[in-house]
């Protein structure tokens, strides 16, 4: 999946993150995203999934890496751990699409869509945000879209920082569940 020096960076960042270093954690996720994107894109092409699903998949994998970060055994290399998480999510996509015949228009669209900005997820996360409880949605929007800090969000919503943290964490867990169930409905 990657060179070993890259893996060493990832491992170092994750170790720092596990002691609470947010900067290192951001570096890790930003550095992982393009690698996940390459794998997701090739998998979507092979399955004839629309290009728009690539970024959904990248976001789902990053969310899962986040929620399962405690399962990395620090005495073992981090690359295979990331790959195993990505594989689990990619298999999900395969399962979602198994019974779907892809219309030829979609294939054409996906070929044409290659130059679209890859950073924007088209569908899932924004649809899924709609399923969150109002307060969860408010906090997710405040932090992700407006870039507010936990403290600013807490002040504005007249909550304690602890309550904002708990709500954010529940919202992320709920998002992961919605991802999975939306996959089954497809």
């Amino acid at each position, binding site marked *: 999946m990657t060179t070993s020096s890259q893996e060493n960076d990832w491992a170092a960042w994750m170790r720092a993150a596990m002691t609470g270093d947010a900067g290192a954690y951001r570096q890790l*996720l930003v550095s992982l995203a393009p690698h996940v994107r390459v794998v997701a894109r090739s998998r979507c092409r092979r399955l004839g999934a629309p290009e728009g699903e690539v970024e959904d998949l990248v976001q789902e994998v990053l969310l899962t890496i986040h929620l399962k970060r*405690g399962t990395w*055994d620090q005495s073992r290399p981090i690359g295979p*751990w990331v790959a*195993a998480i990505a594989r689990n999510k990619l298999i999900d996509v395969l399962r979602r699409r198994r019974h779907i015949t892809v219309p030829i228009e979609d294939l054409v669209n996906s070929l044409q869509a290659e130059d679209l900005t890859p950073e924007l997820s088209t569908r899932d996360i924004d649809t899924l945000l709609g399923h969150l409880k109002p307060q969860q949605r408010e906090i997710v929007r405040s932090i992700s879209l407006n870039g507010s800090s936990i403290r600013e969000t807490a002040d504005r919503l007249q909550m304690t920082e602890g309550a904002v943290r708990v709500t954010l964490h529940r919202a992320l867990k709920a998002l992961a569940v919605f991802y*999975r169930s939306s996959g089954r409905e497809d």
Partner: protein
Amino acid sequence: MKTDDLIELLVKDLAPWRFRSILAGAVAGGIIIAAILFFVGIGFRPDISEAVKSNRFLFKFVVTVSLAVTAIWVTLSVGRPGGSLAHRGLALAIAPALLVCAAVVELLVLPESQWMPRLVGHNARFCLTLIPLLSIGPLACLLAALREGAPSSPGLAGAVAGLGASGIAATFYAANCTDDSALFVITWYPIATLIVTTAGYLIGRKLLRW
């Protein structure tokens, strides 16, 4: 939502936790629940002060404790992404191997006329019901911990958790049961363990997907 926005969200949710600590907590919780059930429900056998002098009685715990320890150790491995039996699975052979050795010794030292009575024993029915009953708490705790984990094979992880829960339950049950012959243990304990392991497999397959 842009991926960078999502990353910002994830960074804000950063709090350290370890799967190992969660599993350790689950083991402790499971042991406490099983212990409460044991002391409230069945307790030690009446002749416990005599029994502890008997090697046959004590060896039961060598087997059940090694089953619990090895299975929980393997659970830690199969509960992680990419984990499989290839890494630590061989450890699961320790408890059965010990039990087989003890049964062979038992066959050698006992006269043939004693084999069947010892094997059938008096408590088979209790063994088959009490071990699964005592393992419900530990199994629930281990499965809850595995939900925080990320097993690549949910069914396998649930089954190994079932083995671990059986080990804990059998350790308590063995302190109540008066059948100490390895011939009894090798006949009935594995059936009880199989029940719990199958339950773990079936629940795990449903519950441990992520």
